C-alpha cells in the first residue's frame, strides 16, 4: 500500500485512485467524528462527500503543510457545521454546537454494575463541560493531536484574539482551567 505522501502526490497529479485510497482510509475517522456533532447520518455523509469533492477541486492550491489527518478534519468540520447551520437555519455560533461522545473502559479493571455506574458518572462529568471543551478532550486525549493542530482545526486563534478584551476575561470564569482557550488568552497576555 502506498504511503500517505505518495497518495498526496498522486492526488496533486489528478489521480482518482489516490483520492479513493484517501477516502477509504479516512472516511471512518470522519464519520465517527461527525456523529459526535449530530445523530443525522445523512448530514455526516453529505459533509464527507463535500469534503472529498472540495479536496479534489482544490487539490492544486491546497497547502500540504501539516498532516492529512489535520487538513481533512479541519475541512470536514467546516463543511459539517455549515450543513448543520443551513439545516437549522440559524446564525452560526459555536455555542450552539453540540459535541458529545460516550467513553468505554477496559472491563478487566472494572466490571458489571461498577462499570455501568462509572460510565454514567463520567458521562455526567463530561456533560458539565462545554461542547468545545469536550471536543478538545476528544482530540487531545483520544486522538493524540497537538494543541497547534487542535487550535487550527477548531479555528481558535481567530476567536481567542478576537475575544482578547475585558469581556473575554469575564468569560474566563466559565472556562475550566486547563482548556485551550485559556492557553491562548494567557499566551496573548504574556
Amino acid at each position: 500500500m502506498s504511503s500517505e505522501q505518495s497518495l498526496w502526490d498522486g492526488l496533486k497529479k489528478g489521480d482518482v485512485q489516490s483520492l479513493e485510497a484517501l477516502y477509504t482510509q479516512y472516511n471512518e475517522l470522519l464519520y465517527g467524528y461527525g456523529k459526535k456533532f449530530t445523530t443525522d447520518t445523512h448530514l455526516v455523509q453529505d459533509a464527507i462527500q463535500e469534503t472529498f469533492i472540495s479536496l479534489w477541486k482544490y487539490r492544486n492550491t491546497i497547502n500540504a503543510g501539516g498532516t492529512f489527518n489535520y487538513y481533512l478534519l479541519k475541512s470536514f468540520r467546516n463543511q459539517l457545521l455549515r450543513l448543520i447551520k443551513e439545516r437549522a437555519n440559524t446564525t452560526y455560533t459555536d455555542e450552539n454546537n453540540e459535541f458529545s461522545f460516550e467513553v468505554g473502559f477496559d472491563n478487566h479493571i472494572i466490571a458489571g454494575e461498577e462499570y455501568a455506574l462509572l460510565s454514567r458518572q463520567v458521562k455526567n462529568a463530561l456533560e458539565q463541560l462545554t461542547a468545545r471543551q469536550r471536543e478538545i478532550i476528544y482530540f487531545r486525549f483520544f486522538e493524540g493531536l497537538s494543541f497547534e493542530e487542535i487550535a487550527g482545526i477548531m479555528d481558535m486563534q481567530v476567536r481567542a484574539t478576537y475575544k482578547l478584551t475585558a469581556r473575554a476575561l469575564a468569560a474566563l470564569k466559565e472556562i475550566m482551567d486547563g482548556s485551550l482557550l485559556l492557553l491562548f488568552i494567557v499566551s496573548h497576555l504574556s
Partner: protein
Amino acid sequence: MGHFLCPFVFYIRNTTLNMQHSIHHYSNYTMHQLLAAPYFLEWVRFPDAANSAFWEAFVQAYPQRAADITKAVAIAKTMYVVNEKPQPGESRAVWNEIYKEIKPVRRISILWKAAAVFLVAMVAAWMIFRTNTNNRIEVASRFGEVKKLLLPDSSEVTLNGNSSISYSKEWNKREVWIDGEAFFNIRHSDTRGFEVHSTGLDVNVLGTSFNIRNRRGITSVVLNSGKVLVAAEDNKKLLLSKPGDMALYSKKENGLTGKHVPVDHYTSWQQQKLQLDQVPVSGMFEMLEDDWGYHIQLRDSSLLKKKISGEIDMKDKQVLMDALAIILNANVTQQGSTIIVTPN
C-alpha cells in the same frame, strides 16, 4: 505554547487572572470528575516533568486521595471513545457520489447516446426479469490493500490484499463467503451462530476471532481467541479451542489436518507485515503474488527451496527490495509489478 504544560507558570498566570489553578483546586474532585478533567488527562496521556510534579504535589498534600488518583490513572489509560462506524454499503454509495461529481465530463455523440438508451433498456429489462440475483453484497480488496469492514451484526472483518467477502443483503443468517484471506472478530451472540464458507471448508463460530486463508487450493484457519468448529467438505470436523490452533485443508493432499502455530505469524498481515518462520522462498513468492500482485522472475530455481525466517515491513516497497536482496544474495530490480532477481 510550551508553558501551558508547566504548572509553575500556570499557577502564576492564573493568579494574575484571579483563577485558582493550584493543586488545591482539585481537592474536592471525585474520581470520575478527574476522568473528565483536561489537566489530569493531559498528565495521564502526555506526562512530563511539570505535570508529574504537579500531581505528585497533589498526592502529597492530599494523601487520602492517593488511592483515587491511582485508580483514575488506571481507568483513564484504558478509556476509549465509542466510535460509530459507517456501514460498508453506505461508504461505497458516498464514494460513488463523489466519483460522479469529480469524473471528467466528455461530449457525447448522438450515436453513443442511442447506445446508452439501448443499454439502459436492456438493464431495465434484466432487472425486471431477474429473480433475486442481486441480493448479495460483495466487498473486495485490491492487491496489497488491507481493508477493514463491519458486517451488519457489527462483527469486524479485515481483508488481506486481493481478497473478497460476500454475504446476503437480507442477513437472515450470519453467514459469509470468503475468497483469499481474512481475519474475523466475531460479535458474540448466544442465540445466533456465525458461519464462514471457503473453498471446501466451513467454519462454525461461537463468538471469537480467527484468521482464514484460501489460496491455491489450500485453506487454513488459525484461531486467535474463542472457539471454532471447522468442517471440511468430506464431513471431517476439527474443533479449534486454543489460540494458535490451526486447521489445514487441501482436497488434493492430506485432507483436513491440525497443528499448533504461533498466532502472530498468521495475523501480522493486518499490520502489513510479512512474517516468515522457516518458510521456503517459493512460499514467500506465492504470498507476494497472491496478496500483493507481484510477479517474480528468478533464474536460479535452486534458491526456491531455501528456508527463511524474519519479518518484512511491506509498507515501504524499498524494505521489501532490500530484504529480498539480502535473503537471496542477489541483485533485485523492479519493473512495474515484476520483480527481477539476479543472483550475485
